[in-house]
């Protein structure tokens, strides 16, 4: 072709080829957003529930009198027990800010409701809603032309991956589902849970313990004031539209609870109580410890869902500005008592009070025994210890200590310039060898790391081996001590 024709055909050809990308994405429509498909989703793949549910309610503006908003935990609450015309807006990793946005959109589009139940997770005070703008599974619905356009561009011009190829080739079927049209607990799922919870008691202790699920928790930046502002905005919106608002805090599994900064959560609760009364199920009571009441580290069982609904209906667990201080004191006491008697080895956050402070080991005072170890040296500098690691072997064998209580608590505060591993080896019998199968492992991040470990006394009595770090470098140890 002539060069002049080449120029025109270059532009046209490029345009046509580029258009293959949106065409492919539209055809596959992994999150069912582009087709606004309320009735199908790919088997084994999540659709964008928050987008579709909001759009669905807008399409049925007078069908519901109550909305239940919250995270995936809301899926274990039977919304029909709130009222027969309740729609469950829950979506995975749900955030109040997004629900607030959805509510605004729905009300603007003429949706009429009388009651609103909102469940809050602890992560409301650290998870930034902005992250959701770029999440295909959670991008919210906004009913304006510009936002609609942005949303379509977002989904049409996304990078396809191998899963899209499989979907396109029909490897995963598009199945009919009612998760958008009737988002109530499915009978089958409830039956499975009932069968699970009928396991004889003697088997229970053999069940594998549930691992914590921290969802990339980072104990550095919090958004308490932003969360409170969202709640204030939600309250104002509800008042404006004469909607009765019920706010409650979901319970947490104890392994999650003790790893989070409880002083921050306490601050949040205190501020929340000053805004409006709420129902608080977030505490270290028997429900938090009982593995049989948890599906996994994040999600409670249906029975807990029923318990929450009943408690709210009977106005139990209501916290307001009048009783918040007494309530928080009670929670603290409950945590302190229960932790000391909890079995096993586990980590907990600095903000959680433990019963005793009698020091049984302090590396700062005993470092001379380890200062010239084969793999590293320890030197005292400005009330800290400098650990210069020359090889990968950083073992410190701690002599057996005779303790008198059920639990010993270890506190480590260390600064590292790189990511590395802390390992704590323990023995069931004094004559056993240390082994990889009996060790506690913690990933130290770059920067300052502060961690607490609750250790059963028998391990301390048998002698521990501590590998504070796992890589060659220079570290600063601010604290390494044990107390009972």
């Amino acid at each position: 072709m002539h060069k002049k024709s080449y120029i025109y055909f270059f532009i046209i050809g490029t345009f046509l080829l580029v258009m293959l990308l949106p065409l492919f994405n539209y055809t596959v429509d992994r999150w069912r957003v582009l087709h606004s498909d309320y009735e199908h989703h790919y088997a084994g793949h999540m659709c964008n529930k928050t987008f579709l549910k909001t759009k669905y309610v807008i399409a049925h503006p007078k069908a519901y009198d109550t909305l239940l908003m919250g995270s995936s935990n809301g899926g274990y609450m039977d919304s029909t027990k709130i009222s027969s015309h309740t729609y469950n807006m829950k979506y995975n990793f749900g955030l109040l800010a997004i629900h607030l946005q959805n509510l605004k959109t729905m009300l603007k589009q003429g949706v009429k409701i009388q009651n609103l139940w909102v469940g809050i997770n602890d992560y409301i005070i650290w998870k930034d809603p902005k992250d959701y703008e770029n999440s295909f599974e959670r991008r919210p619905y906004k009913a304006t032309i510009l936002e609609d356009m942005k949303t379509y561009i977002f989904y049409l011009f996304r990078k396809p991956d191998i899963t899209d190829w499989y979907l396109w080739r029909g490897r995963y079927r598009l199945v009919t589902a009612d998760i958008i049209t009737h988002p109530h607990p499915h009978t089958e799922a409830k039956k499975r849970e009932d069968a699970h919870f009928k396991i004889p008691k003697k088997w229970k202790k053999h069940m594998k313990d549930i691992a914590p699920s921290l969802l990339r928790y980072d104990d550095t930046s919090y958004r308490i004031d932003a969360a409170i502002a969202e709640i204030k905005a939600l309250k104002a919106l509800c008042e404006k539209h004469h909607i009765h608002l019920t706010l409650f805090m979901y319970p947490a599994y104890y392994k999650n609870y003790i790893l989070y900064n409880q002083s921050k959560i306490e601050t949040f609760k205190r501020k929340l109580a000053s805004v409006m009364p709420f129902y608080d199920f977030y505490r270290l009571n028997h429900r938090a410890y009982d593995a049989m009441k948890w599906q996994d580290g994040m999600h409670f069982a249906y029975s807990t869902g029923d318990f929450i609904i009943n408690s709210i209906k009977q106005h139990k667990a209501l916290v307001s500005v009048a009783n918040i201080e007494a309530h928080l004191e009670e929670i603290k006491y409950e945590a302190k008592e229960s932790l000391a008697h909890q079995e096993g080895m586990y980590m907990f956050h600095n903000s959680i009070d433990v019963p005793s402070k009698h020091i049984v080991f302090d590396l700062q005072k005993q470092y001379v025994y380890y200062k010239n170890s084969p793999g590293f040296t320890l030197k005292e500098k400005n009330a800290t210890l400098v650990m210069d690691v020359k090889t990968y072997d950083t073992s410190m064998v701690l002599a057996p200590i005779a303790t008198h209580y059920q639990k010993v608590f270890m506190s480590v505060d260390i600064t590292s310039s790189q990511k590395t591993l802390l390992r704590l080896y323990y023995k069931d019998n004094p004559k056993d060898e240390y082994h990889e199968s009996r060790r506690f492992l913690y990933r130290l991040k770059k920067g300052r790391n502060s961690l607490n470990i609750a250790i059963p006394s028998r391990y301390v009595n048998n002698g521990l081996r501590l590998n504070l770090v796992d890589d060659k470098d220079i570290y600063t140890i601010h604290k390494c001590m044990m107390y009972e």
Partner: protein
Amino acid sequence: MLFSTFVFILGFLPVVFLGYFILNKKKLLIASKVWLIFSSLFFYSWWNIAYLPLILASVLFNFILTNSMLHVKASSVMNKKVLLLIGIIFNVGLLVYFKYMDFFISNVNALTDSEIALLHLALPLGISFYTLQQIAFIVDSYEGLVKKKNFLDYTLFVVFFPQLIAGPIVHYKEVMPQFESIKNKIFNYNNIALGMFIFSIGLFKKIVIADTFSIWVHQGFDVAYTLSFFDAWIASLSYTFQLYFDFSGYSDMAIGIALLFNIALPQNFNSPLKATGMIDYWKRWHITLTQFITAYIYTPIVRSFVPLTFHKAMFATLLVFLISGMWHGAGWTFIFWGFLHGISVVINHYWQKKVKIKMPQYLAWFITFQFLNFGNVFFRATDFDRAISILQSMVDYHHILVSDYLIRRMRYWGYSVEKLDGYSAAHSFVDVDAVLMIVLGFIIALGFKNSTQLQQAFSTMKRVSIRWYLWSILLMSLSFMVMSFQTTTEFLYFNF
């Protein structure tokens, strides 16, 4: 504004292009130049308008200075020399102040145990390039190579947006006659077609190749102390390819854009990764910089050595490579990188002059490539400790890890991977994607014709074949697709 963004390709470029030729068609020749100057300054200010006064002041000062040179009497050599010195001191001083001040202060602090506060000056974009271009212009004016000029032409020569930020470094006598030529004032379909073709190659190099490699470069160099054997190799090779495809991609795009305006910019790369020696490499890599250094630094140094000997010439070579290293960045790793390249070029000269043994081509290529790859670790690492740690990992074949994801993939594909169980880690990025991309990098860099060869072949064609057409739209559309879902990164040479 980056060349590899929609706002540039679909917004800025068509507007400037149409505006320029419409004004030319209406015979508003000065207005068309003014249009290009304003467009270029707008392009430059897009990043940070705060940089604009500096470049304008620099252009104005250099124009006044060189204009004074033209008006100095021919007999007054001393005055001309003084003006030349003032010009060089001004331009180098500007560069030193903005680029090297903090480096000097931190070294003084380290040597004298003092605590002089760092200035934390932001490096004005393109200062390293437009400073060199203007120094070359001053020297050319001093030597009488520039006969006439006006402020508009001079400003356009410095700020013409395709080459403003990162070259190719051009000479006044190369570019301005092209702007003056009447036949270049009209639409030239051959040049437009060629420009689009070269631009599509450059865009593909940047968006699809270089930006993909940048992922492993970041992953590797950010955790320099904990890299395993394969991770270190993937990180270093990725950087070598990223650097080449990023910068040559930028140069291709600059050449392609300039061609739309009927301006031919000089070639900047000639398949440098095919080099079979370090002398050969520097004839192929960043050619316009090598030409500048040779003409304006190396030659004056060598001329000052009387009598000139081979050893003195080698000393001068080493010296200009140290300067070249420093020009690339204010840090000891850059100076060391320059030193390494200088030493290797000197060794290459000795080999050619004294040893005189011809090495097999493949061996010569292998040694050259490995040297470049190892040297680039110093070029990219933020300090010596990290660079050395990466190099140690590259030879520590006992410490082998592959990514968890690879193990899972292999298991999914039905391979028995029990033997690899102890060698997997979540932080490792040894995966099929990285290895395939590196293989692809080698194939493209070594097995294909380079942009200049393709440009020559394309320009000699009377008609464009379907094969060439399909390739060009494929490269362009793939780049556009990737641009639509991936944030493009800045060009590496913007930091130098």
